């Protein structure tokens, strides 16, 4: 789809959010959640304590799980930048917040982290917020056609 058409679909005033914006939003969430999970897995299984020396962090980046996490987070970065061109920042932030919920679930399932009732209530608030924002237009500012 040409960028100009993309602009028309998400022009100010319309409540329609096109399928490609929804799919890209889902991709942003998935790469973020899996990237954070992979990073966390790698950090939990590293044997030495991290200090402040930069080389320790650089060495960690090249361990398998952290490397996978980093690759996923690079994909997340690129897709999110693209999404920010298609939709408002104030739309993208709450809509991608489902990632926080999924991260909490992964933390409980794979790491046995404690998820208290406050955290589940927090999850409910986040989902409610996403529903609210999902009912608004994705883009309320004018855009220039791509390149």
């Amino acid at each position, binding site marked *: *789809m040409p*960028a100009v058409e*993309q*602009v028309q679909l998400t022009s*100010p005033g319309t409540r329609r959010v096109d399928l*490609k914006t929804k799919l*890209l939003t889902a991709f942003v969430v998935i790469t973020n959640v899996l990237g954070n*999970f992979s*990073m*966390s897995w790698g*950090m939990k299984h590293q044997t030495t*304590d*991290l200090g402040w020396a930069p080389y320790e*962090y650089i060495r960690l980046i090249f361990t398998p799980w952290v490397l996978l996490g980093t690759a996923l*987070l690079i994909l997340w*970065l*690129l897709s*999110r*930048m*693209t999404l*920010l*061109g*298609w939709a*408002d*920042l*104030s*739309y993208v*932030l*709450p809509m991608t*917040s489902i990632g*926080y919920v999924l*991260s*909490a679930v*992964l*933390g*409980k399932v794979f*790491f046995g*982290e*404690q998820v208290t009732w*406050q*955290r589940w*209530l*927090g999850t*409910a*608030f*986040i989902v*409610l*917020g*996403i*529903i*609210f*924002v*999902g*009912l*608004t237009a994705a883009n309320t*500012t004018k855009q*220039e*056609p*791509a*390149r």
Partner: protein
Amino acid sequence: MKWMMVGIIVGSTVLADLLQSFEMKRHTVAVEDLRPGRVAGLLASFARRLPLVVAVFFMAISFFAFMKLLSVADLSFSVPVTAASVALETVFARWILKEKVTALRWAGALSVACGVALLAM
């Protein structure tokens, strides 16, 4: 240590997101540019845009602070608590980026912020 890392992450994330949103709205990306064969070109075009380079710098600060946070705190704490930036960024999106933040969107952002606060407890 834990809360200092959270502060660094939130501050640098807010700056990075504002810069990215500002620049990406000036020149949007076409869907065709997201094909696997064009990703390298897309990356190169991003690297030539100063606001995006500065944004990535702030994201790098946030990234390393996040790594440090993960080493001293649970994932189920680390990820949610850094979402404190949502409410702050919504305010800046309204004032600086001139986005139309409706009552429903404010309600959504505040609900997410409350959720994040509860998750961080």
